[in-house]
């Protein structure tokens, strides 16, 4: 890299740093909903990606409606759409919990299989409704530009996703550790029968938690329309990454999810910069697997007395 000036190297350094941050926020958004569902409830939701795709399709529908009926609203609709995606996915999540998940709480590995079946059905549903082709929601122009300072370009959509993931993480942490519901959730996770005995409606807690996790997946899917594709299979592209983030974080802690998303994002970002594409990804995955083999409890486990 001898041909570059110090300034050029510096601006690349800044942009690469941001690219790592941006990947971090993407992984975090993917992982949060899953961390809640998997970490707190022990349910493995293989259809998580399909909930993300639903969020993305919600954006697509909303963008079509906006363009047709309220064209003047086009620059702003996106922000509201994210909330709509949250609600839509949350409702579907609650329904799925009622239909499937609640019968399987005592069989965690089977939730994996049942939700895999669900993901097949959802994928085919998207295909029947929206067609096999990928669709492209019309995004506001302000979202697709970049902030430029000299040689440094910072993508606005990256900043947007980063900001969104900070907000979602913040709200979730507040919700779980400060709110009344969060208290109920945590107590249900720790001791289901005792919680029931002290008057917590554990059925409702489970349903709300699952719906919340799915809703967050919807937010993630909506946000990802700015950086990725919207198609019937879009979700399946994210699922493995999302699981690895949650598992390497130590399933039970949100802090762990944040930490592992950061670690994986930095590793991938740096490895991809210095290695060629696929090799960077394979190297990242190998690092994660080896780390998990050495520290199966994840990077940030919550230590408890064995029982």
């Amino acid at each position: 890299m001898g041909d570059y000036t110090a300034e050029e190297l510096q601006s690349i350094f800044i942009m690469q740093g941001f690219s790592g941050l941006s990947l971090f926020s993407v992984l975090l958004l993917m992982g949060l909903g899953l961390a809640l569902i998997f970490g707190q409830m022990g349910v493995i939701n293989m259809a998580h990606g399909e909930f993300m795709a639903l969020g993305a399709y919600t954006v697509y529908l909303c963008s079509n409606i906006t363009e047709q009926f309220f064209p003047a609203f086009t620059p702003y609709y996106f922000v509201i759409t994210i909330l709509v995606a949250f609600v839509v996915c949350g409702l579907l999540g609650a329904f799925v919990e009622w239909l499937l998940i609640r019968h399987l709480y005592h069989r965690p590995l089977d939730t994996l299989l049942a939700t895999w079946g669900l993901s097949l059905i959802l994928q085919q549903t998207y295909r029947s409704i929206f067609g096999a082709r990928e669709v492209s929601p019309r995004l506001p122009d302000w979202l697709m530009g970049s902030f430029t300072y000299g040689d440094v370009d910072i993508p606005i959509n990256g900043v947007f996703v980063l900001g969104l993931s900070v907000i979602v993480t913040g709200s979730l942490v507040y919700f779980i550790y400060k709110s009344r519901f969060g208290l109920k959730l945590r107590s249900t996770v720790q001791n289901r029968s005792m919680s029931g005995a002290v008057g917590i409606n554990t059925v409702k807690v489970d349903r709300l938690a699952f719906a919340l996790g799915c809703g967050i997946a919807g937010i993630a899917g909506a946000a990802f329309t700015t950086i990725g594709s919207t198609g019937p299979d879009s979700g399946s592209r994210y699922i493995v990454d999302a699981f690895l983030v949650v598992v390497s974080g130590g399933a039970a802690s949100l802090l762990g999810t944040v930490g592992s998303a950061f670690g994986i994002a930095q590793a991938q970002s740096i490895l991809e910069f210095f290695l060629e594409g696929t090799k960077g990804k394979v190297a990242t995955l190998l690092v994660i697997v080896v780390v998990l083999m050495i520290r199966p409890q994840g990077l940030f486990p919550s230590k408890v007395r064995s029982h």
Partner: protein
Amino acid sequence: MPLFLKTLFKTRGEAIGFIAFLVLVLVIFPLAMPVFRLNLVGKYLSFGFVAIGLVLLWGRCGVLSLGQGVFFGLGGYCMAMFLKLEASDPESTSIQSTPGIPDFMDWNQLTALPWFWEPFKSLPFTILAIFVVPAVVAFIIGWAMFRRKVGGVYFAIITQALALIMSLGIDGNQGYTGGRNGITDLRTLLGWDIRTEDAQYTLYFLCVVLLALTALAAKYIINTRLGRVLVAVRDQEDRVRFSGYDVAIVRTSVFAFAAVLSGIGGAMFVLQVGFMSPSIIGIVPSIEMVIFTAVGGRLSVMGAIIGCLIVNWGKTAFSEAYPDAWLYLMGGTFISVVMFFPNGIAGLAEKFPRIRSLIPASVTERIKGMATKKTTKTVSDGQ
């Protein structure tokens, strides 16, 4: 010998079922089907090896691996490498810049055979590799994880990541592996054309016989003390550990054994289908292998094989008629199997499979006899 048979089949029904299955695949199918369909059945049955492995590993021992495709792939690639080398003799590859190496290597500017391909010129080595490579890989992975008590969901996710790594790794090194296209256009095995109808009949019967032997081996294992230990590890891990068993090595061994079975399945797949590609070993196929097993019955060896046949046959038949409905049907079947018939088709056949399969019928009488009067007949000491 009767004792041996009793170890294989605990009830008369089991024995009859097994014989009925043999009649179905060895006599009825070959008579009733054109060779094209029979070849398809052979392909489905090659997944039966994986399913048997999963019955031991997942159904019995409670370890769900979402990475069985990796081992299927290892076995399959070993076989495919041998066949590809045989198909790439200097004569038939004379238009290449470097004749005598597989075509995809030539396209990727390789000018010599990579070192790890060399031994696959030998059939004995290849056959050995089909067994040893999956076993060693599984043993290393299993040992690393089980020794640290990684299990359940974590193991499932990590093995899924392995499936992803393997398929990405093959994609990314196409000069050495054939990449995404895989290793195609396989023709002969020691000069014997595997694409002819005769060969396909022969390979079908070879596959069925191997599968039947594998099924017997699995049934044998299930009915020995090892089989009971597997279930015990699944249900009462700590108790087993504190009865002095090394749980890690038990799990690792059954994982390695399941891997070997998958490898054999992969090799049979390649022989019958005529190519190998990373699309058969990634995340989705690996989960599908679990699906076969679950639908057939995760506890039952024969159930899992039947599951392979039914799911794959359904896939072929329904996707021919209603490609759209197929995914709904597949997803729906799967959800309902998990929710309502966790022991699959085999579970429907027996009323209480969990209990039945664990209490050998003969034991009751033997103990009764033992408890009341001392047995006089001598039993050979197994140690």
